[in-house]
């Protein structure tokens, strides 16, 4: 029976994992653990098994049991008040972030929560944001019960310290859509009224209804002028106040000239006005703005440390009782318990247990650090292994990490992108326009006063560089999309321009250049027989130490029973199998003489059988795939590596990066940040690629901070762009492509200039009429849009993106 099962490993009906360690059969279905089975039974009981029909094995593994007492802090009225978004006598509304959500089954189950608990009246999922919004009757069910219910079915909501800080996440602004809607409405209707102007045979119509149409158009244009176009005027005014010319200044003058000339024409009855061009321009330019604003609002680019911290922690009372307390309320002297994989929220002293702290989140070190009793453990570390007890020595707000974060260096000043292409172009544009306008005025005034006014206003109108202002957002917007398709997510379109200017690239080592999960394993020594391998594997299977786990995964064979197993923290393991004693551990634990140990800097694990040393395992850092090619492509830029680790990889890195590259080891987060500042002082445009919170300062300080992550929805320090680790090999392509897009923008400028030259020529000759404007305007904007879109697509295909 057992043999049959092993050859035909079943997959869990609930989560789809293979049932290797355990196999539970219930209802003729296989489950990999009791957690999964419990969820299934719960759903079955409530007639919710459609969950399994929508997608195959949709569940989330129940192997990590949720300790429900952890949610006790949710009973605290203060915490509750900060989390919920609405409350009245009957109902409460709350939105949870549940990153586990991954398929349509998840949507279905989460929207059918009311069947599991009648206290929940409604639940709505926003899949892209991975959010579920709940409405519940707070007299029937408490917030804690709702969260417990969600966790029980596998969707534990992520509630972090940032949520309870009262900083509500800003909803995506809808203003631009309102503006677009109104501009579009006015544009369409004014166009309809202006149509008789365009055709010769409707002249009679125009004569009868001209002033009515004119006033109506004026009426329709008012909301566009005061609401939709307001952004251009305020931006231009800001520019003037800072004594700078931006692209919005010529736009604003053009729009003002259009609007007031039109009013003049309508009121005096001298013409139909340019209201169609005016509303059309605003509409098209708003489309450009919308394009520019649209970004990945499902990803979070501005996280600070509070987003990583848990909300509550288990506090041990004097009588030994456990109580969940909000992290904010932790005080010095509290005894806290940290379980496997939990984050330490405050600087604390270790009182009991073996602490194996994974600081990768703070320092980037890949190996967990051993701590002995009495040592101080800094906040931000993650415990691996058994649960430990600590005494808090500093409040959360006073901790090392918090202080580091609040350091003023860490806050990036919002750069108001002054020197963008568009703004430089805008400056020249307004100079040329003013010269031409003045020239035409000087020419016409002695000859024909009316003509002079007309030529002057026409020049201002045609000079409105709407096509110019559309070029950048369209090219950048499409680039953003091309990058997104290749798993490189930019915070906004301005980042494309920053990327194009980069001339220095700084890498973090651990986790960025190297792949943390795939350290290479090498065995040196006497060759092991299959039986010995099996024995080693069996002993290792009892240890949770990450090194043991890694060797365990690399070995073949089934595990067999181990007797007298013992683990010595920080040293090694011992176990007895078939009468022979197996020891696995550090050199000193096995008894290898110190001088016989080669490569003291590498991580090694020795193995001995009955006191005879057989050999040792060595862990190598594995560099990411394609790293060599990327570094080769980036040879024209200044390269540097900042590592929190020691320098034992120096030779290999030198070989990879070349002689000129600067390698800095043993860098603290502040040193990394200072290094970036130093580069910036040397007039470098710096790009920093990092992954951990230890790089956070450097990421913010650099011109373009890129966070590398294995799962984009989870874990990334605040940055300008998020790069999926699988797309790392395309990094140099991305940089090159952003350079290409700048050329494309220049080309688009050239296209729009052609129209402006034609328009200007007509304007100075006094031939610019509403009809010419109505024809020239849409053609120029549409051709610029099309050119920008197609050229980016073509360039992307050529670049292989």
């Amino acid at each position: 029976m057992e043999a049959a099962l092993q050859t035909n490993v079943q997959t869990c009906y609930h989560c789809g994992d293979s049932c290797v360690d355990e196999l539970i059969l219930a209802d003729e279905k296989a489950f990999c653990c009791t957690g999964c089975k419990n969820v299934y039974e719960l759903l079955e009981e409530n007639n919710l098994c459609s969950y399994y029909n929508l997608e195959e094995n949709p569940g989330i593994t129940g192997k990590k049991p949720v300790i429900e007492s952890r949610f006790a802090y949710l009973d605290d009225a203060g915490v509750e008040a900060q989390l919920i978004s609405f409350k009245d006598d009957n109902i409460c509304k709350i939105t949870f972030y549940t990153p586990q959500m991954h398929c349509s089954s998840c949507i279905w189950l989460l929207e059918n929560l009311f069947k599991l608990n009648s206290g929940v009246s409604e639940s709505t999922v926003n899949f892209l944001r991975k959010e579920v919004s709940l409405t519940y009757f707070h007299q029937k069910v408490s917030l804690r019960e709702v969260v417990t219910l969600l966790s029980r079915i596998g969707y534990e909501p992520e509630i972090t310290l940032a949520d309870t800080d009262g900083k509500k996440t800003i909803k995506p602004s809808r203003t631009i859509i309102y503006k677009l809607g109104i501009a579009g409405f006015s544009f369409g209707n004014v166009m309809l009224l202006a149509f008789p102007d365009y055709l010769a045979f409707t002249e009679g119509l125009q004569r009868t209804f001209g002033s009515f149409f004119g006033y109506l158009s004026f009426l329709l244009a008012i909301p566009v002028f005061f609401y939709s176009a307001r952004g251009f005027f305020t931006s231009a005014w800001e520019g003037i106040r800072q004594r700078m010319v931006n692209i919005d200044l010529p736009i604003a003058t053009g729009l003002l000239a259009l609007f007031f000339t039109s009013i003049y024409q309508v009121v005096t009855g001298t013409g139909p006005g340019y209201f169609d061009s005016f509303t059309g321009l605003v509409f098209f330019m708003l489309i450009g703005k919308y394009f520019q604003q649209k970004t990945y609002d499902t990803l979070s680019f501005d996280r600070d440390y509070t987003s990583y911290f848990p909300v509550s922690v288990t506090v041990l009372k004097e009588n030994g009782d456990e109580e969940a307390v909000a992290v904010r309320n932790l005080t010095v002297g509290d005894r806290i318990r940290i379980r496997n994989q939990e984050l330490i929220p405050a600087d604390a002293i270790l009182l009991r247990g073996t602490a194996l702290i994974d600081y990768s989140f703070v320092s980037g070190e890949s190996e967990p650090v051993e701590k002995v009793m009495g040592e101080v453990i800094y906040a931000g570390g993650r415990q691996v292994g058994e649960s430990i007890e600590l005494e808090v020595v500093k409040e959360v707000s006073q901790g090392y990490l918090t202080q580091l974060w609040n350091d003023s260096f860490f806050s990036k000043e919002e750069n108001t992108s002054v020197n963008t292409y568009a703004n430089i172009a805008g400056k020249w544009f307004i100079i040329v326009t003013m010269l031409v306008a003045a020239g035409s005025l000087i020419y016409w005034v002695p000859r024909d006063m009316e003509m002079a006014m007309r030529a002057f206003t026409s020049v201002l109108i045609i000079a409105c560089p709407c096509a110019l202002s559309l070029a950048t957002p369209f090219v950048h917007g499409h680039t953003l999309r091309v990058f997104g398709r290749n798993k490189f997510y930019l915070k906004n379109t301005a980042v494309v321009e920053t990327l194009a200017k980069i001339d220095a690239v700084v890498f973090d080592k651990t986790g960025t250049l190297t792949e943390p999960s795939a350290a290479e394993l090498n065995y040196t020594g006497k060759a092991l027989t299959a039986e010995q391998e099996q024995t080693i594997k069996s002993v290792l299977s009892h240890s949770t130490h990450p090194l043991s786990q890694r060797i365990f995964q690399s070995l073949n064979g089934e595990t067999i029973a181990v007797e007298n197993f013992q683990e010595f923290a920080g040293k090694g393991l011992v176990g007895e199998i078939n009468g022979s004693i197996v020891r696995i551990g550090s050199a000193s634990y096995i008894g290898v003489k110190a001088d016989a140990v080669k490569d003291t800097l590498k991580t090694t694990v020795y193995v001995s059988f009955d006191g005879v040393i057989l050999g040792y395992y060595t862990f190598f850092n594995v560099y990411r795939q394609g790293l060599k090619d990327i570094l080769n492509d980036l040879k024209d830029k200044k390269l540097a590596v900042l590592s929190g680790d020691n320098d034992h990889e120096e030779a290999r890195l030198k070989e990879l990066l070349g002689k000129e590259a600067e390698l800095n080891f043993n860098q603290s987060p502040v040193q990394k940040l200072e290094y970036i500042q130093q580069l910036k002082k040397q007039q470098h445009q710096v790009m920093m690629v990092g992954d951990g919170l230890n790089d956070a300062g450097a990421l913010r300080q650099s011109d373009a901070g890129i966070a590398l992550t294995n799962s984009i929805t989870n874990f990334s320090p605040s940055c300008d762009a998020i790069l999926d680790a699988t797309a790392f090999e395309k990094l140099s392509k991305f940089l090159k492509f952003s350079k290409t897009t700048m050329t494309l923008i220049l080309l688009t400028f050239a296209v729009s200039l052609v129209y402006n030259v034609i328009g200007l020529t007509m304007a100075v000759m006094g031939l610019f009429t509403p009809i010419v404007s109505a024809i020239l305007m849409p053609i120029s904007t549409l051709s610029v849009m099309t050119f920008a879109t197609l050229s980016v697509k073509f360039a992307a295909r050529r670049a292989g993106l």
Partner: protein
Amino acid sequence: MYIIFLMIAVSVTVATAFLLAFLWAVRSGQYDDDYTPAVRMLFDNEVTTKSNKKTKEEQSIEKSLQS
């Protein structure tokens, strides 16, 4: 020809109604999530599961009859 005044008044009114409908739709959050509703509408109603259950019961009845 003066019918045009009326026609334009009607057309602008209708257009305004659509504009207001659009603004209301944006305001009520209909443009916030363009993925989930598309999936949601494909979910079957509870009827299917019930009928599945019934067939199961029927099968067991049939089985017991056969034996």
